[in-house]
């Protein structure tokens, strides 16, 4: 009798959460998912996906979603790694800097969009300072559709600013688990900082990197508030198209098709990360 | 006070069998050491007794109570953890008093008993401190004080000394022995350190792969290991094992080792005669080998490889045939590396073992 109650305990502890999530997240997701396979009248069809594929913005949305992913995620990881390694040296005052670096953790993309628009717009802060320093005669148009790389760059910058914090915290937590001996061993063998980072720290950080990459990729696929604020519809992304079709064009079915696509890509990316960065128990150094 | 009985305990984690039909009886007041390499199941057995692990088969008795299905708190045991498990958010006093408070003892009794066990473990000056303000050794004492204050019939210790440095360990070992002679609780002590086991235990149960391979008084285990594993696990350096073949000449068995022949003690003669032509192992402790000036009975040719003067004795690493043997000799013995010498065996001290099974050959067939 005791044995049974023991093995049921974890399920009992998880049950309230699971019920909650199933009722309020899974069921609506499922209903929304169904929309993607239905006509407006509720018949089953694949026409929504055909319409999605035929959408003028579809190809661009695919292209920019993956381009953003390719730029934002590595930028965030590199920046976060630098921050985490700096903090990890535990220089005097490092807790203050940790706090500063972690600030954007709690800033929503809505607020972030407002902040960066005030910086990048034609008469914004960035042009103001460049102008006052004499680098520019007149404002440079960062947000011009004729200058897609600049526009794209602003998105990368804004997203890197907002979301690097989470990666930094995860990596720093990962760094702290690595025994100091490894760093010292590398020092003894004459590794310089760069080599030590590449050949000792990064491989040992692999579990944390995997976590950070998964989390960032999930959210990067869903990013659109900042994109919409800075680039309007000139740089469409899949999640943004889902939102536009839903909120502006009032077509829930095509919006659901886009959302489904986002879900599929996210799952695929997650699986790839698990495969690529899989650490065996032995590698992790535990029994 | 109570004795303890394990009856065919079985515990499985996934695919590994941590306890494989283990039966063991511990007498009231006895100090029993569970000894074995990591992963042998000794800690599991202890945790089954504490109730921290559910057994998959068998029963556990404390005294004449069947405690198999009781929660840890109902078993009237006290336990010292390898990590000490001293509560970091409580002072030393509150740590020690924790169990008594759970029993809702009167305050003055708690105070009296806490102070008493603190005195026994020389913690009286630290009662108001938090664990973070203590050294490792002091924390370990708190863990012990917290256990003995319960005056439980059964005291369980899971490698309590393994996180201490060597000197402290030596000191605490003696203290634990004194403590046991004071409180006389039935004690089960898990360790992988054979020195601790030999020094502390009334009896030692040596475990391997989820089974008890030998359970006996320390010196018996040392002198008469039940098999090659026990002989190799206990003793620093461990027992030497020289391979040989049994030859029966005129009804008298001898072991042919290299070009030498070694005769067993009379008691083993008949048991060995039955193994004519079979390979055999001669287990012998380093201190039971001596250097001989020339070939004589029960000697074997060997070459000195390494000489380590260790103060109380010299440790020699010898090459015997293709095998390496360790020999312990008096510190003033003159010997040099690469010297060819003769090693003398005391036939009485040889533990003969079956080469295939590793089991010791006993005098009774």
């Amino acid at each position, binding site marked *: 009798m005791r044995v049974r109650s023991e093995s049921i305990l974890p399920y009992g502890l998880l049950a309230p959460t699971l019920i909650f999530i199933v009722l309020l997240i899974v069921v609506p997701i499922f209903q929304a998912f169904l929309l993607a396979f239905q006509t407006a009248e509720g018949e089953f069809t694949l026409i929504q996906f055909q319409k999605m594929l035929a959408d003028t913005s579809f190809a661009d949305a695919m292209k920019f979603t993956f381009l953003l992913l390719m730029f934002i995620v590595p930028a965030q990881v590199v920046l976060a790694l630098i921050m985490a390694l700096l903090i990890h040296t535990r220089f005097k005052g490092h807790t203050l800097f940790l706090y*500063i670096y972690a600030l954007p953790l*709690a800033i929503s993309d809505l607020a972030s969009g407002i*902040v960066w628009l*005030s910086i990048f717009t034609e008469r914004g802060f960035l042009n103001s300072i460049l102008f006052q320093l004499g680098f520019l005669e007149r404002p440079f148009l960062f947000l011009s559709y004729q200058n897609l790389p600049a526009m794209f760059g602003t998105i990368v910058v804004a997203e890197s600013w907002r979301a690097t914090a989470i990666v930094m915290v995860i990596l720093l*937590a990962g760094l702290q*688990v690595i025994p100091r001996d490894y760093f010292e061993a590398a020092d003894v063998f004459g590794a310089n900082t760069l080599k030590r980072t590449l050949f000792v720290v990064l491989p040992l950080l692999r579990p944390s990197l995997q976590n950070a990459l998964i989390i960032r990729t999930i*959210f990067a696929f869903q990013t659109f508030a900042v994109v919409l604020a800075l680039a309007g519809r000139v740089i469409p992304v899949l999640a943004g198209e889902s939102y536009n079709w839903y909120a502006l064009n009032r077509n*829930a079915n095509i919006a659901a098709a886009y959302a489904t696509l986002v879900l599929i890509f996210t799952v695929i990316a997650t699986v790839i990360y698990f495969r690529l960065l899989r650490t065996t128990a032995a590698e992790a150094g535990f029994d | 006070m109570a004795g303890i009985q394990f009856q065919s305990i079985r515990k499985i984690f996934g695919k590994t069998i941590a306890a494989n039909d283990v039966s063991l009886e511990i007498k009231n007041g006895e100090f029993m050491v569970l000894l074995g390499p990591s992963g042998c199941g000794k800690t599991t057995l202890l945790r089954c007794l504490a109730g921290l692990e559910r057994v998959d088969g068998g029963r556990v008795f404390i005294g004449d109570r069947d405690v198999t299905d009781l929660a840890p708190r109902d078993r009237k045991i006290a336990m010292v953890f390898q990590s000490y498990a001293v509560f970091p958010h409580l002072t030393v006093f509150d740590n020690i008093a924790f169990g008594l408070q759970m029993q809702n003892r009167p305050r003055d009794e708690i105070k009296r008993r806490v102070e008493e066990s603190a005195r026994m473990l020389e913690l009286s000056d630290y009662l108001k401190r938090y664990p973070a303000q203590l050294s490792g050794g002091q924390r370990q004492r708190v863990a012990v004080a917290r256990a003995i204050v319960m005056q439980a019939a059964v005291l369980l210790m899971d490698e309590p000394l393994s996180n201490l440095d060597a000197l402290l360990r030596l000191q605490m070992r003696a203290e634990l022995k004194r403590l046991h002679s004071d409180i006389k609780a039935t004690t089960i002590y898990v360790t992988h350190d054979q020195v601790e086991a030999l020094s502390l235990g009334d009896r030692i149960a040596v475990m391997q792969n989820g089974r008890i391979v030998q359970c006996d008084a320390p010196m018996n285990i040392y002198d008469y290991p039940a098999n090659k594993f026990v002989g190799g696990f206990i003793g620093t350096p461990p027992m030497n094992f020289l391979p040989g073949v049994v030859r029966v000449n005129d009804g008298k068995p001898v072991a042919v080792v290299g070009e030498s022949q070694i005769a067993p003690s009379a008691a083993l003669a008949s048991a060995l005669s039955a193994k004519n032509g079979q390979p055999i192992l001669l287990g012998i402790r380093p201190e039971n080998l001596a250097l001989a000036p020339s070939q004589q009975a029960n000697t074997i040719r060997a070459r000195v490889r390494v000489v380590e003067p260790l103060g109380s004795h010299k440790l020699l690493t010898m090459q015997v045939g293709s095998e390496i043997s360790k020999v312990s000799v008096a510190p003033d013995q003159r010997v040099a590396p690469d010297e060819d010498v003769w090693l003398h065996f005391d036939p009485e001290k040889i533990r003969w073992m079956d080469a295939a099974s590793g089991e010791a050959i006993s005098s009774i067939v």
Partner: protein
Amino acid sequence: MKSSLSRRHIFNQIFLYSAAILLALWTLAPLYLIALAAFSTKEAVFQWPKLFLPTAFSTETMAFFVSSTGVLDSVWNSVVVALVTVAASLILGAPGGYALARFRFRGRDAIQLGFLVSKMFPTAILSVPLAVAFLQMDLYDTIWGVALMHTAMALPFVIIVTAGIFVGVPRDLEEAAQTLGCNRLQAFLRVVAPLTIPGLAAAAIFTFVLSWNEVFAATILTLRNRTLPAQVLSGLSGSPLYYRYAGGFFMILPAVVFIFAIRKYLLNMWGNIVR
């Protein structure tokens, strides 16, 4: 030898601090600028080139934002929603986190993965099913409804983070308590709870921030009882720039305060996610 070593050390320190300060500026500059914009006169907001010192300091914009109908109410709503969310998600989620931290059981990985997957679907299009469901439950347009939704959205985070926190308490401590006379619940309350309260508080504060920032569910599920981001969003498209700056600043403010409050526990919280 020694002096060259110490020179190298000084050089290293200079390099270290310059890099750290540069990165700090990169993080802080946008926050400074939005604060500057939120506390400037309306004219300064449209000025070219813009000023970088608070010479045009004015609380006019901020005062207008704060005094406009619904903003203070929405701040109050946000606070209540966030507090309810924190309480509910911790009460519901912490036991689950404990289960993930302490037990190996079948389906454990699947459940953890499930939490992850529940975050992979864009939220915006869940609105019709959700609005209908909440109307049926009579929770529509109540802050309780929003809190309920935020709880569901925060639970995957809470459960994974609390699992990380509980993992940090050695199992031995709990077992020691059990051998000393506690049952499981007592052991949890007397040993695990006191040790994890700081970490759980940090998780709670972060949950507060999640709820404070959430905008889609709040917009869809309420009409009169708006939370702050929903209020700002509803005024976003047509309102003048200075209103948006003030709103943006107002949303960022708690972030700055709360991250400061939990700065010591950031690593505990995020260290163990997705194992």
